[in-house]
């Protein structure tokens, strides 16, 4: 498949370990955030979102943490599986405007 990003930061984790992917966002007016997963050759898929009135939200095996003080977002994936290998990127929405996307992090799951 195609390379989504040849110069992306890469995180390598052992299968079964937990993964933490970080994102620094830029606009203090951003009040809605989404994490997307993009597998090779596919379009980005929604994973989980969080609004600025929350600091933590959990989904199935995923947790998003929001620290508005330092404008930081993280995605935690529990018990990482081979199918989690992909590029992950965050998106911020400044008060109803168009989303702004981060550059992405490539997650590589080692057997």
């Amino acid at each position: 498949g195609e390379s989504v990003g040849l110069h992306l930061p890469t995180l390598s984790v052992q299968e079964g370990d937990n993964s933490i992917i970080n994102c620094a966002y830029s606009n203090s007016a951003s009040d809605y955030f989404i994490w997307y997963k993009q597998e090779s050759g596919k379009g980005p898929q929604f994973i989980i979102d969080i609004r600025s009135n929350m600091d933590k939200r959990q989904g199935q095996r995923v947790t998003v943490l929001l620290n508005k003080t330092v404008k930081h977002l993280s995605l935690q994936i529990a018990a990482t599986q081979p199918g989690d290998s992909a590029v992950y990127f965050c998106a911020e929405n400044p008060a109803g405007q168009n989303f702004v996307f981060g550059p992405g992090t490539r997650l590589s799951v080692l057997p």
Partner: protein
Amino acid sequence: DVKVTQSSRYLVKRTGEKVFLECVQDMDHENMFWYRQDPGLGLRLIYFSYDVKMKEKGDIPEGYSVSREKKERFSLILESASTNQTSMYLCASSFTGLYGYTFGSGTRLTVV
């Protein structure tokens, strides 16, 4: 299952050709977007539309135009394709600015 459908997964076109990339969504979304994705540059917004017959330039509109004659369809047009327009093109839609985007599978365009 809701969908954003891009008409082609792979396209090869010649320099100078007029190229049409089609995108259709079945979610009755108001907003539609065209991005290009290049290694190391992430997602860059080309054009967007908040309503039928409405269009706005994004960050990199040069060399592109768009058409939105129906709510469900948003077309990206390369008036005269050039090799620097070789890229992955992604279409997305959303209900309003308060909701996330649903993306299509992308069109890998190669201009030779």
